[in-house]
């Protein structure tokens, strides 16, 4: 609250820097401008989706649906562009609206149907991918629109466009979470829903809203995904939801809700992508990448859970000498 750049950012930032240093030292290509710009492209999709995943987590929910929703939305976009001949300027806003609407649907089921979000979005994870397969007999649709690719690969003053999307959406999200009524209400609902009810916050509406945000950000990610490959496919976005949640967790968001800083999620996403990049540069197989991702998630949550113990340990190490003195003083007296 209030402090956009607070101490919660230090840990995730340090983690990101350390990981980057390790990768830079173990490979010679990491710091190539080509690789760095590739990195920013790579992080953009998961980082944008992670905005929504994180906000849902802030309100003590979880969104498992985003990966499948990406697949579904790229198929719908492909359908619109390829077979319905809709102009890009109409198709993209439509996709964003559909994404937000799907989010609204999940939000309503969760908040008003009182079904835990884990279940709602797990069902959606399965169903959305199934739905994606109903388009074009389940086959990918290629070569959608020549104007689509520049959305992802375009540059402005020499900087890749996705960089600007990140700045814009993370700026907007940080503003919302730290300076608006909605942001405060999201943290309140995640912190203590019973107290939120008694303070007059419309808890269900707030919960549903977080899913709308998540749906919208997933749609943004889906548009970029389609633009990147100029295609739609029911196979896109596999495990993307887990990467997005991992970004939030590595960024320090508490899965119990109410705690975390949205900007830290960006750092969490970068950390994960840098690790993947490092493994790629070292030609590690994708199985290893998944194992490493799992370990990172465990470590991130572990460091959070063991924070008290770690600081107690530090205190004990640094205070050992004066303590011994007091004890002996006492005996002498």
């Amino acid at each position, binding site marked *: *609250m209030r402090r956009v750049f607070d101490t919660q950012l230090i840990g995730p930032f340090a983690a990101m820097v350390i990981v980057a240093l390790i990768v830079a030292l173990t490979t010679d290509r990491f710091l190539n401008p080509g690789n760095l710009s590739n990195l920013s492209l790579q992080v953009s999709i998961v980082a944008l989706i992670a905005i929504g995943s994180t906000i849902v987590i802030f309100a003590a929910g979880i969104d498992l649906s985003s990966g499948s929703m990406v697949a579904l939305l790229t198929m719908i976009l492909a359908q619109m562009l390829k077979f319905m001949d809709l102009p890009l300027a109409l198709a993209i806003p439509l996709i964003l609206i559909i994404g937000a609407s799907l989010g609204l649907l999940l939000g309503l089921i969760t908040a008003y149907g009182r079904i835990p979000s884990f279940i709602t979005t797990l069902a959606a994870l399965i169903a959305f991918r199934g739905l994606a397969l109903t388009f074009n007999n389940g086959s990918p649709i290629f070569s959608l629109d020549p104007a689509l690719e520049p959305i992802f690969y375009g540059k402005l003053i020499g900087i890749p466009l996705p960089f600007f999307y990140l700045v814009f959406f993370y700026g907007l999200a940080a503003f919302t979470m730290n300076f608006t009524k909605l942001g405060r209400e999201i943290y309140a609902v995640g912190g203590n829903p019973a107290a939120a009810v*008694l303070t*007059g916050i419309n808890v269900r509406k707030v919960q549903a809203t977080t899913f709308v945000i998540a749906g919208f950000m997933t749609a943004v990610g889906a548009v970029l995904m389609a633009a990147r490959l100029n295609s739609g496919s029911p196979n896109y976005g596999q495990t993307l939801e887990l990467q997005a949640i991992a970004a939030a967790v590595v960024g320090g968001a508490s899965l119990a809700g109410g705690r975390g800083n949205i900007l830290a999620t960006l750092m969490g996403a970068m950390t994960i992508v840098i690790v993947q990049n490092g493994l790629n540069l070292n030609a590690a197989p994708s199985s290893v990448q998944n194992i490493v991702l799992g370990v990172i998630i465990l470590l991130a949550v572990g460091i959070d859970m063991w924070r008290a113990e770690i600081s107690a340990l530090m205190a004990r190490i640094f205070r050992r000498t004066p303590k011994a003195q007091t004890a002996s003083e006492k005996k002498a007296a």
Partner: protein
Amino acid sequence: MPPGGETPPFGPSGENKAMTAPIPLWEFVDVSKAYPGVLANDRVCIKLLAGSIHGLLGENGCGKSTLIKTLSGVQQPDSGQILFNGQPVVISDPQAARQLGIATVFQEFSIVPTLSVGENIFLGNMPRSRFGVIDWKKVHADSAAVLAELEVDIPTEAITGSLSVGEQQLVEIAKAVAMDARMIILDEPTAALGEDEIERLHGLLRKMRDRGVAILYVSHRLDEVERIVDEVTILRNGRVVRASGETKINVSEIVSAMVGEDIAEHYPKERNATQEVVFEARGLATNAGVTDVSFTLHRGEVLGLGGVLGSGRTEIARALFGTDDLTAGEVRLNGRKVKFRAETDAIRAGLALVPENRKFDGLFFNFRASGNITAASLGGLARFGVLDLKAEEKGTRDLIRDLEISSQAEEKTVNFLSGGNQQKIVIARWLFSDAQVLILDEPTQGIDIGAKIAVYKLINKLTRAGKSIILISSDHDELLAMSDRIAIVQHGAIKRTVNAAELSHDDLVRASADPIDHNHRHPEEALA
């Protein structure tokens, strides 16, 4: 070296002293404990004797609970020694404390709300039959026996979370009693209890003391402390400012030792009631136990609800606030009929509720004081959805100062604050909002004398500003002193309303006691 360890050549109690005085069951020698930024216990020394009730007193945040957590093995001291029968020991965790015969009723409840009363009482040491299976018969029989010793009538199969806060507190106490401990620690055990229950608890504690149990007792209700304790230790800012051993216990002396100054007026009541009716209830009933509630509330008035534990006062608050649906009756605000389908409606109309159970219903532990204080007023603070953080900062800083809330509250999230400071923050929330009618359910529960007086002054400030208050309190003296009129509640119904000035303490006790069946828990049946 960790504290404790092997037996030192010379115990701090010294050989010659041990001749004259009995060796304490437990003793703290220069125990210190720091949290980030505060030295919560500063070289504390305390001796707890078998067969003695030892009062531990002090303002909110002075370090009472910290001491208790150390003795219960919840945390380790930074330095100092803990002696058990004169021998240094390390209490590595709560399990170890239990094995050393320590039972603790913590300030923050540790019962599991989804389990039955019997399960909670024996949680962690369930009686088992020969085959290692839990002996349910014994669980319920034994827990019923403990409850009977406390003279409370709670079915052992009841789900604990469905009980009132007071009953839950009794279950907590029963849990400690059931451990058959040699050292019982009670951190504000009576905060949610009425006079009757307190009397029964005291009776039980005296019995246990006479059996040779050592008891450490924390409370902010000094009248009660005066009655029960044999000796006191007073802490201020983490240090012992008055050690036990001195004889006569004198409340005003205790207060000045606690606060560091004399207090002239405990109940600074101002009369601000007008003739104008602001709020009116007619024949309210709910399925949650409200049977017949009618009253009027005037501008600037404090209407006290008097009654025993379980008489339905909290349920009345819930009915007024739209939490429970009305099955009969109507509510009028400023002469107009209103219907609250949910709390949101009530809050929008200008009602506020300071709930009894601050941990579960009141606080956002992820926020600092400011976020907690403004949570009910975000609409007023926002313009086009954007919060005015400067106004929030200023308004909350003023309140933190007025209510003498620890200045740490500005920087730290409220889970780091002492219980009393947390309670003040919950109240501050409604002072910040522009509610017209405030329902205060046990507002001074667990807060120190200074803070209580601060709350009374705030009640005055509110009524002076034309706001009206419904006050629920188990502290009869407080209720009598701070109310203009008192409504007597029995079985979820208001029996009569009288001027507070015409009522004495004994009248109130007698009037609120149940004439039909003292322990009956279901008002509907009682009337049928």
